[in-house]
């Protein structure tokens, strides 16, 4: 099982978290090669359906990351997003999805180290859970 590399979809906002991911790379910070990044303008763009579809499609986990509260390039997109996530996360846990499969974070453009840490953490969490089975549509 140690060789298994989870595949985690990371939905990152363009202005903070994606920039933070770039900075992590520019700083040559090393983190597990588990994430598959999708760039979107703002965490406010994230429809909970994105997360559900990704899980169904077979990703072992989903990370959504936006700007810290107050930092949103679009003023309040992350606040709008936060309400959605605040309901989605407990609901997913309620239906019995493993809590760590879907996680949210705020990472700023200057937080390359934080990005690396967050990815390391979610990868460890998901490695512990093993490959996703629940919600994955069998092909």
């Amino acid at each position, binding site marked *: 099982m140690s060789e298994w590399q989870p595949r985690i979809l990371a939905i990152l906002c363009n202005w903070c978290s994606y920039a933070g991911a770039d900075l992590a790379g520019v700083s040559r910070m090393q983190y597990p090669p588990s994430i598959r990044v999708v760039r979107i303008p*703002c965490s406010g763009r994230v429809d909970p359906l994105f997360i559900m579809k990704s899980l169904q499609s077979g990703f072992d986990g989903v990370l959504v990351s936006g700007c810290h509260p107050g930092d949103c390039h679009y003023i309040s*997109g992350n606040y709008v997003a936060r309400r959605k996530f605040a309901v989605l996360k407990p609901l997913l846990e309620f239906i019995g999805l493993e809590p760590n499969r879907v996680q949210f974070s705020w990472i700023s*453009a200057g937080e390359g*180290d934080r990005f*690396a840490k967050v990815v390391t953490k979610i990868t460890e969490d998901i490695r512990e859970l093993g490959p996703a089975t629940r919600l994955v549509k*069998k092909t």
Partner: protein
Amino acid sequence: MKNKKNSVLVLGAGIAGIQASLDLAEMGVEVHLIEGTPTIGGRMPQLDKTFPTNDCSMCILSPKMSECARHSLITIHIMSNLEEVSGTPGDFVCRVIERAKYVDPVKCVSCGLCEAKCPVKIDDEFDMGLRKTKAISRYFLQSIPSEYTINPNYCLFLTKGVCKLCEKVCPTGAINYQDKDREIDINVGAVILATGIDPFDPIGFGQFGYHRYSNVVTSLEFERMLSASGPFGGHVVRASDEKPPKKIAFIQCVGSRDESIDKNYCSSACCMFAIKQSIIAKEHSKELDASIFYMDIRAFGKDFDKYYDKAENHYGVNFIRSKVADIVELPGGSLELRYTFENGDIQLEVFDLVVLSIGLQPRKGSRKLSEDLDIRLNKYGFCHSDTFHPLETTRPGIFVCGAMNGPKDIPESVVSASGAVAGAVKLLKLERHDVSKGEEEVIEKDVIGERPRVGVFVCHCGINIAGVVDVKNVAEMAKGLKNVEHSEDVMYACSTDCLEMIKERIEEHDLNRVVVAACTPRTHEPLFRDTISGAGLNPYLFEMANIRDQCSWAHMNEPEKATAKSRDLVEMAVGKARNLTPLKRLPISIDPEALVIGGGLAGMTSALAIADAGHDVYLVEKESVLGGNMRDIFFNLDGSDPQQFLAETIERIENHPGIRVLMDSNIGEIAGFVGNFRTMLTNGSGEQEELTHGVVVVATGGSEHKTSEYLYGRSSRVITQKEFERMLHEEKFPPGKLREVVFVQCVGSREEGRMYCSRVCCSKSVKNARQLQSKKAKANIYFAYRDIRTYGFSEQYYSDLRNSGALFFRYTPGNKPEVEMVHPDDPDSRIRVTLFDPVLEKDVVVDADLLVLAPAIDPPEENLKLAKMLKIPLNSDGLFLEAHVKLRPVDFATDGIFVCGLAHSPKDMSESIAQAKAAGSRALTFLKKNSILAEGTIAQVRKDRCSGCGYCEDVCAYAAIEIDMEEGIAVINDALCKGCGACVASCRCGALDLRGFTNEQLFSVFDSLEIEAVEGIL
């Protein structure tokens, strides 16, 4: 040939210089941005967070930096100095020296191999010497331009003629040891100086042991320590033992408010800076104990006092009003502070780390610059400018902004930059321009209805990617993907020859979508978009897979997994690419007229700034006179005459052919949006008129708070500062002697219901006290205050007043001065004031001949109505809330609407003038265009799906969506939409979608990988 005189030289590429350049360029002015260091950005990139919102400094700055670098009208000259300006305003010749960089910026791909190999380690200036860099380096990670430069003072080859390692490893042959300094002459119409400040060097303060004690640091060093991108990765640790400190002391006013070192001015930003740092430090570690040693907390800006309150009451930062006498280092590196309280008690306390809140001082070399350019400096060495012309140097045609002419925080610097632009454009002859003009139009291929034919180009980036990722394997894999017509690997995708090759491939394979797997789209997407655009494809038919910054660089030791990840990223990019559609940026016409609401100083100044640049202005005033609050101001601290300036200004307004003053007028309704507003006006006689205009400047002012405290309204001897100033002016003093005069500050400010500082009252009271002294030499002056906030150069007048014998009594909100009438039945009775003296620790009773109150400044009530009409927000104090408190201080989130003067927040005359000019200047960035282009990636509505529930309208921060109640559907204003997509994700019906990030495109990304489902492992 462009008219060179329609260009401006901006010296200094800090935030002020960047803002000035962007504003000018948006107006169609060609800009030469001269910067001494190898990058633009100035001080802001060094900051971790900014007060009072704790915004990440780099996050908010970097979009402006990229915009600056990308703008076709801005030429950045890094490592350059301005040597001389000759000629006359409107026609200057500037001599600029561009120093040798020794790296060819065209060839350098910023791969960093040179830096890795360079054997010379030197102190990193950006990180305040807390970290080492190399003789060949990038100034900081997000430098713009991103190319490397060689520091000739340290380079082994340039100093000793040996090494050449960088040349050996450079994959593109970019190193050029023969590079020479170049001298160039630039012809411009105006010059804007924005050279900023230097931090004060506390080395001379022996008692604090800076440099001797390793755990005494300056605030700027501490800022780097706090920063996640800083030398310690955001872990606050002491230099002596690399352990996190548990107790931190901040010592304020190091290098400020200090006559002994000839710095009798307040650096204005350090109090907030220290509060911010204490909060951030506490956020790093909740157990941390932070104490700030201060004289007065000068939290005078908008929302600053709330931040101060939050630090003290929410975060538990200790605020100790005391002077630190000296510091002794204890064994182990901790520091013992000796400090005195107001009552003379001495205390010793040990801290783990001491932060010196160093002041701001003129830049090294500003003396020489002033001589080279023939401009005057003030007595502290800052650039001189006067109260009524705060953005002008003593040499016509040369303007000043940022902290160069006095300490400023970031928003004030931004305001002054935009304001300086207003001055500069007066000297130019600007035509309105079309944004699309100038760019060569290539006929775009129609790809609608065509089967997607994707071309994939996988970049080696030298060995940056190919050293880790099996690039050929990735390119080969891509060939088997659905809709992929062509795939190949390339050495440097961004090199000129490769860009040409991509164009050829588009032709050859009739590609209609292009995917480049290389570095980050944040820097390179525009380049590739331009490229495919040149080949006749719509630029939005392009997608990038980031396999360098987010793959090869991050997984250097796991080549196989990095390759697997790259394959996936390419598949995902192809997944999105096959569903990309061409996007258009539609033009929105701009009416050339402006509406300015409010005929006070700010409104008039703004109107003049716009009208002087050749645009018609409607100046609307609800009263029957112009001048607003300024009609009550008769003196200035520096001795200048406000009434004379006011009279001149009104005369200019009334005689200006471009300004139509609409007196006694009320606004009934404002409809429309940027470029296309319609305003219904009702004048005094009830007649209605409709105005059309492209922009709105809100300058509705403020008013003195109507207090009922301290017997005001019940005694003829209790008056406000405003009334007192008129009394001083008219010299109509109350009968009898005027011996004992008590001033009470903060009447209504900084307390429940008005949790803000009214900013100007301290200076105003000092000013009037000095006036009183000049007219009634025998008057004794008593000052009841909470903190004296005579920031900036007003500080010297405050110390003059103190030195003149005026008595100062500090009070707290719980222990306000008590007042009673000596003869309660007599309204003209003298007032008995009881003041607590914290130094003597006892009450002092004064029978005052006059009690002068400094009431708060209130926002006008009609702000609420205006806010609703314009769909612009107010903060909790009823002040207009700008788009961004740091970097967009006069803009609203809604385009085309600007704010200045007291409507924004309390401020003095100079600040109002600067901000009004800034608002004018920001307005001109729109007015100078015939049309603007709406964003390409904006939301769109499918009417048949919309049920008009209004959630999109509610979540839109830009007022870009409205529900048409007749039709019951949402309508998007293309001009206002910024493309965040919050509305789209909030639309349950799928009626909204975001162009460029559509549901279809994103779904296709989520479903692009064939991940085998794993059976039954639980």
